[in-house]
């Protein structure tokens, strides 16, 4: 007898419908599984029969053929176990095939019939909603992430028997929830580690404020122990909580990577990724036969922190260049292209030289050549993508001992809130949201300094010999500074502050 179960699979971060067909007929006893399967899917054969048997059903010695269609798409993952088992049982008449039409089913089976969680549930459920399914049967451990979509009943099952009984209408599911989790509609902030725990470092805190307010990529240079990492760890505390749309995107990405629990804290946290510097280029942008998102996509709508930038493989760093411009990354494979979103705030920290103490000559033990080589690991095109560059100093011992508190996260938040509001208003008819996204003629239009400010900028441009690219970055940063100060006009003080954070170039080390 023939039966068909609908399941899904993830390609990139998009879900696709996969039909699982089973046919059991008389003839020479056989059992085969077809449909362009990866080895973990082929192994489902053994898992499924054993778990069916251990759930108390008997499989007769007949000719069993299972097909996963469309048959030209490669199938990966363990989520087909449950639909295959259901299809077989339906063919054997244990489940009425009429009941099956309304369900989308996914889950991994254990030998004892238990249903284990799988990756990528959220995009699959999204897809099920789009195709008009009314209910999804998923492993009970995946229910929480499945519910985020809304518009569909998500039924969590603990084992095969439960699933069968539920489909046959003999049992209420152990968990049944159908409404999306309410995500905050107004802007709110997480309260975590606070900036006031950092003594001194006012310049660094100020530039973090600017970076967050205008979404400017930031590079921090400073000696070891200056508190660079400590400061960046606190950045999420001044970033607003994700909007529902952002949260759903983030949740899908983490669902695909099986990292949903990392991002879930009663709501979706803003991603904060701090990969180790041994990272490869594939891990940075995403890779695999069917590509999985890399670090830049995991940081989508959040923060990617590259600590010890100078130690990263240059190949991994250079892959960042295009996604930083396009806010997405396309990975091409023979069987198709995968586009992953990658709109993140890049923050990097590095030492100024190998020993970390330049320009403090009393402490720096590096030779001029060593200092020069240290920065040359990072290409100028990559440096150019940072809008802000700032120095962190060794903490002032006096301030440290006296525990003199500096600016707190809440005071920074109120400034940032102001800047975000102004940008929202200014760009409501544009398809951008932040000052850092301004390009070309928009910069001229939105970042008009007043006369004295323009004069100062032009004078500095001539005397300090920075590039045209740096000139425009200064304007964009000055716009954000003005927004933070709740000023419509860009005045000279804003320009001079922006100049002090100007983009780093190799001239930093010129005088050696």
């Amino acid at each position, binding site marked *: 007898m023939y039966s068909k179960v609908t399941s899904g699979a993830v390609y990139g971060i998009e879900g696709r419908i996969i039909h699982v067909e089973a046919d059991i007929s008389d003839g020479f006893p056989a059992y085969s599984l077809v449909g362009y399967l990866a080895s973990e899917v082929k192994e489902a054969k053994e898992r499924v029969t054993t778990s069916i048997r251990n759930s108390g059903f008997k499989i007769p010695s007949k000719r069993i053929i299972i097909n996963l269609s469309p048959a030209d798409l490669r199938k990966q993952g363990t989520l087909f176990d449950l639909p295959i088992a259901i299809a077989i049982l339906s063919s054997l008449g244990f489940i009425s095939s009429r009941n099956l039409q309304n369900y989308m089913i996914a889950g991994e089976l254990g030998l004892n019939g238990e249903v284990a969680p799988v990756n990528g549930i959220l995009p699959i459920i999204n897809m099920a909603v789009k195709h008009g399914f009314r209910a999804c049967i998923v492993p009970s451990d995946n229910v929480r992430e499945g519910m985020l979509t809304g518009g569909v009943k998500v039924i969590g099952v603990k084992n095969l028997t439960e699933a069968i009984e539920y489909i046959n209408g003999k049992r209420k599911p152990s968990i049944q929830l159908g409404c999306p989790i309410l995500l905050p509609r107004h802007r709110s902030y997480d309260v975590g580690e606070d900036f006031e725990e950092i003594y001194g470092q006012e310049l660094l805190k100020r530039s973090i404020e600017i970076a967050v307010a205008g979404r400017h990529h930031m590079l921090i240079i400073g000696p070891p122990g200056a508190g660079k990492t400590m400061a960046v760890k606190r950045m999420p505390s001044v970033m607003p909580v994700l909007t529902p749309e952002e949260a759903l995107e983030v949740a899908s990405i983490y669902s695909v990577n099986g990292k949903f629990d990392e991002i879930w804290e009663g709501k979706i946290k803003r991603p904060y990724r701090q990969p180790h510097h041994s990272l490869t280029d594939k891990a940075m942008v995403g890779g695999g036969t069917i590509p999985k998102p890399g670090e830049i996509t995991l940081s989508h709508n959040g923060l990617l922190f590259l600590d010890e930038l100078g130690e990263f493989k240059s190949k991994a760093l250079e892959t960042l260049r295009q996604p930083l411009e396009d806010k997405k990354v396309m990975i091409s494979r023979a069987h198709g292209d995968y586009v992953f979103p990658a709109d993140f705030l890049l923050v990097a920290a590095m030492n100024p030289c190998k020993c970390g103490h330049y320009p403090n000559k009393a402490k720096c033990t590096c030779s001029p050549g060593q200092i020069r080589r240290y920065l040359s690991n990072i290409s100028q095109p990559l440096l150019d993508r940072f809008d802000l560059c700032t120095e962190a100093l060794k903490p*002032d011992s006096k301030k440290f001992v006296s525990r003199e508190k500096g600016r707190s996260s809440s005071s920074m938040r109120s400034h940032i809130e102001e800047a975000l509001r102004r940008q929202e208003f200014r760009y409501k008819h544009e398809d951008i949201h932040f000052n850092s996204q301004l390009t070309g003629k928009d910069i001229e239009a939105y970042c008009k300094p007043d006369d004295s400010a323009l004069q100062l900028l032009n004078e*500095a441009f001539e005397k300090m010999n920075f590039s045209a690219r740096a000139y425009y970055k200064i304007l964009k940063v000055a716009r954000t500074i003005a927004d933070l100060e709740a000023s419509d006009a860009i005045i000279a*003080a804003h320009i001079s502050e922006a100049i002090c954070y100007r983009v780093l170039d190799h001239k930093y080390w010129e005088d050696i």
Partner: protein
Amino acid sequence: MSMELYWFWLCMVPGIGIKTIDKLMRYFNTPRDVFDADRQQFERIQDIDNAKKLAILNSRDRYIVERDYHKLAERNIHFISYETSGFPRKLTHLPDMPKGIFYQGKLPKDDQLSIAIIGARNCTSYGRELAGDFAKQLAANDIQVISGLARGIDISAHRGALLGGGDTFGVLGCGVNVCYPREHIEVFESMKSAGGIISEYGMGVSPDAWRFPMRNRIISGLSDGIFIVEAGARSGALITAYMGLEQGKDIFALPGRAMDASSEGCNDLIKAGAKMVTEPGEILEEYHTKIKKNKKSKIRLDKFEKLVYSSLCLIPKNIDEVADDVKLDISQIIPVLLSLELKGYVKQAARNHYIINI
């Protein structure tokens, strides 16, 4: 072939240095005799090893020598032997005088005062700024500034001298057409028209470490006085100073602070009797010349600018530190520093690290 060409040939034989040439001159009168000598004459020489003899014998090819000599001329590189007029007379006093030197641009004039300004490669901004300032003022007073085109003090001295509008000469420890380190190419090129590049090594010789102490004797030899700006206890600049002392040159040193490792060598020199100088005039008074006073424009600064300026020195200070010192907010400091910088009173030694501009 002229005698100059024979000298050129002998100076270019690979593996043959001053010592071997001196030994050869004990057996032969002129390099032409070496060129024309037969094998038997060479075999009689005891104190030159066979590899060197072979190198000399194998390089005796008139065509190649003439071709190489023309190549030099094509590239505006000159060769001058000590027998030709125009060879710097000061060098002839050296016991291990180079028999010929290569140069681009000019050679230092014998009748004009030359001061070598030297120091460590790994210098502080204190040394860098003062080397530049001394060189600039000396050059403006028609003193020829000599140094070694190395990183740090050397290049600052050359840059300063170029700014002062005088002649400055760089003595290389590599081939005369080799710019090492490469990032000094701008200074290297401009020195060809405002002074010269000098080396005892011909085209393309690579910058090997052992050649550098050798070139130091030429730096000290070419100069009347040697000014050591900044040198650690074991700096190469001290080698030049001691060579200069042996050659009877005046030694000047810029004092550093006690316990400051980067000035230890200078302070030791002062203890040993070098003249301590803190301004260029003090070098010149040794040669009975006076420095031309250049009119310093009056500094006009407002209250904040004065406050900030007075907190700066030649040791780089970050904006945060300046703000702490003058007890002002960073947002107040930044515009003041920028305006001081645009007016030319301060400059950035490294990004956002300010020093005064002298």
